[in-house]
């Protein structure tokens, strides 16, 4: 896994967040959006994206249906479900907590000096 690949666990949250802010979106749109938000620091491999999308569908956090994109292409659109919205709350808190813990390790506490 390269430096700028996305972690599996975080990818799910990113997808959910993206759908929350953008509304129903196709796979390509989601990938582009995540890459943009990260300031092109992340590259979303399709081999990672689609299994992640499928997993979220299977877990019932998002739903998919076929539609037509802006430039008239048939595409599968993904949208958040109610369970998905709830999941965003839970996942966000979990990540914030994890991030906070990690932050403490990367900036050592003063006592240990």
């Amino acid at each position, binding site marked *: 896994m390269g430096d700028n690949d996305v972690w599996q666990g975080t990818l799910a949250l990113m997808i959910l967040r993206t759908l929350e802010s953008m509304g129903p979106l196709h796979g390509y749109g989601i990938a582009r959006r995540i890459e943009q938000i990260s300031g092109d620091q992340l590259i979303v491999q399709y081999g990672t994206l689609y299994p992640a999308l499928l997993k979220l569908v299977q*877990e019932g956090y998002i739903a998919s249906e076929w539609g037509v994109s802006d430039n008239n292409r048939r595409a*599968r659109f993904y949208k958040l479900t109610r369970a998905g919205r709830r999941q965003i709350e839970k996942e966000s808190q979990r990540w914030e907590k994890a991030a906070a813990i990690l932050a403490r390790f990367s900036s050592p506490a003063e006592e240990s000096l």
Partner: protein
Amino acid sequence: MRKLRALLVRLWGLPRRNREDREFSEELQSHLEMHIDENIRTGMSPEQARREALLKLGGIEATTQAYRDQNTLPFFETVWQDLRYALRQLRHNPGFTVTVILTLALSIGANTAIFSLVNALLLKSLPYPHPERMGAIYTRVTGPQPWEERHHVDGEQWELLRDNVPALVSAISGSRPSGVNLESGSRVQYVQSARVSAHYLDVLGVHPLIGRNFSEAEDLPHGPKLALLSYNLWKNTFAANASILGQSVLLKGEPYSVIGILPDGTTTPINADLYIPIQASRQGEGSGTNFVCVTRLRDGATWQQADTQINHAWSLRANKYELADSPGGQVTYYSVPLQKGETDPLRPQVLTLMLAAGFILLIACANLAGLTLVRLLRRTPEIATRVALGASHWRVQQQLWVENLVLALAGGMAGVAAGFLALRGLLLLLPEHFLPIADVLLDSKVLVFAIVTSVATSVLFGMLPALTTRKLDLRSAIASREATARDRVQLRQILITGEMALTVILLAACGLLIRSLIHLQTLPPGFNPTGVMTARASLDNVRYHDGVAFRKLLDDSTSAMRQIPGVTEAAVGLSLPYERALNEGGIEINDGQEAGQKVMADAVYVTPGYFAALQIPVLEGRSFTEVDGPEAQHVVLVNQTFAHKFLHGNAIGRHLDKDMVVIGVVGDVAIAPGLSALAPLMNEETIYVPAAQMDARQFSLLHVWFQPSWIVRTAHPIEGLTGQMQRALASVDPTLPFSGFYRMQDVQAKTLAMQRIEVALLGTIAGLALMLSTVGIFSLVANIVAQKTREIGIRMALGSTIREAMLNIGGPGLRAAALGLSIGLIVSAAVLRALRSALYGIEVYDWPTLATVVLVLVSVSVIATVIPALRIARIDPARTLREE
């Protein structure tokens, strides 16, 4: 939960993978094109845009595979693949598939049927609330002659139990229902009536559907005449009319008020059409042990308390009959679960059958292991190729196991169907009320048993072959068609030795039971059973408590029957040969050297024609005649056993019970013994008294227990005899129906029901075992022939004769069979001793039986070896050699 949901969705995705794949490639395609569009927008050339997009995609195949892995379950997908492969394989080998499924169907069918019995009798709870709080009381006598059983109780025990054991709700019933006549309007019905005490239904936890139960006050001697009807009787006879409550029905010639109706489907341990209060006391019936008791633990009490109270209450008794035969002994009482109490007598038989059925399963496993082993052997090159192409060992194993499982489940399903049919057949074989339970069903427990058995079977028969693939030597396996044939043959020989040994045990056990049954059926009956028709009627009727009416009925009906053309003699007796007779204790011998002795014997009242009708020989003195009326000198006939045992052969003119004089000795007849049961049919000391000299006061009780039989002897078969007998009886009493008509063979068959059933069941199982073993030997030899065709061809080309080749090929099968036979005989020597109590008239080591078993198995083994070996004769050495 989310994980579970995802798993289910993925499982769901398995069969629809193709559509999903198509949709996903469409999605990827649209993704790719959107990417290209955007790249073009940012100024790339179309080719460049496409290349960049494809690069970013990172390989369509890999992505598709990652998506597919997420979409389905890779493990299940391979199982799915294996499943389809297995089905294809099995379809292409119909012979193998049919043999396996048939073998499984028979063996699992046998096990399912027998297990249904075990389940219904021993495992399933009784159909009452809180069955664990229901009990039966066992008596244990220690000392010089110890015994232990669920003993019937007498009136004194009942009163003490009822009044002095507060830990229990106790109840009693008569020992079995009795046939009585129920008159409703112009219709007379013969129904089964049970006499029960006040709290009988409370012990069972049954509440009347409508109406009420008997009260304690109504259950006292000389209490009111009341009846509770079963739902079926209420529905069929009274059209489910609720207004019957409080009304009277004419039962046994007297009005009984109906006070309640039992709910639909209620079963009781005594199972009757209607229930009346037993109104027991210490007198009459209560002076002997004629009651069966059931108990229910009261809330808050423990079984220990109950047992302490029972032992205390019953220690106060005046009459400790239990110790009569074991002076100096100790008697104690204890409660056991009612389930055990009800089914104890059948437990050994049922468990023996289960064991025998288990043997069948083992034999079937051995056969199937042999078959799958051979099949695997044939597929060795195929498997080796797969391993060479990179299939993992685990993958190969998985595929083999899936195949076994498919077979096992198919066989299991066929087995459940076979078991269902076998069970129906078995229940048809059983006489009515033979089992102390209402019905035997294939319930969920039985189905689980069948499925577990099938899977366990597949593990058993699949294990051996699967293990042998571990030692697969790739190079030789691919190259050679004969592979490692030698050790496989040895393995199969071991299997056949084992199944042969089990077959010997089953056949020997079955043979002994058959010999035993033949012995019982061919016992000299002591009378001539051919040309005799009997019919039973209930005289438990207030009209016939009077001696005059009783005598008139017997005299007039028998003379009416004698008028039927072709009838040579007609008579009435309280009981028939082959049946159990009334046991009478305290018969006093008044004179001779045995004066003062009191003896116990069977007692039968008969009309004068009884001995002529049954052709029982009068050996000394004379038979009864019309002269022996109520006012004449009281006379008695004794049978040979009685004369020898109690009167030392000097019987004529002796006095019994003060006023009866012995006027003759008649021959012994085979009966179902009631005094000391050493065999299901035997001779027992018996006295016969003229029906006309019976004390009418005894009838009320005697006819509750026994329904006398009318007997006619005909010179030749008569068309419509039963109808004419019924009309003859109706000409004397139109409200007295016969309950049924029986030839003496029917009576004998009923007494020997248990033995016949044992023979039928064990016979079926032993037959199955023999068949499976034969198939086992046959397929072993057939396979050796098939495998060694080339070797035989070479041998014969080099000058070996067909006979030598056959001996060489058939040898392994015969040697295995011979070894199995010897082991089986040795094991039988130990195992068959357990059958001793079920055998009559023969020894456990019965040489004719064992010789027959050996003869049958040897001939079957030789046939099963020779037939496939005959194929050798058709081998053309030149052709087999060219084939290579």
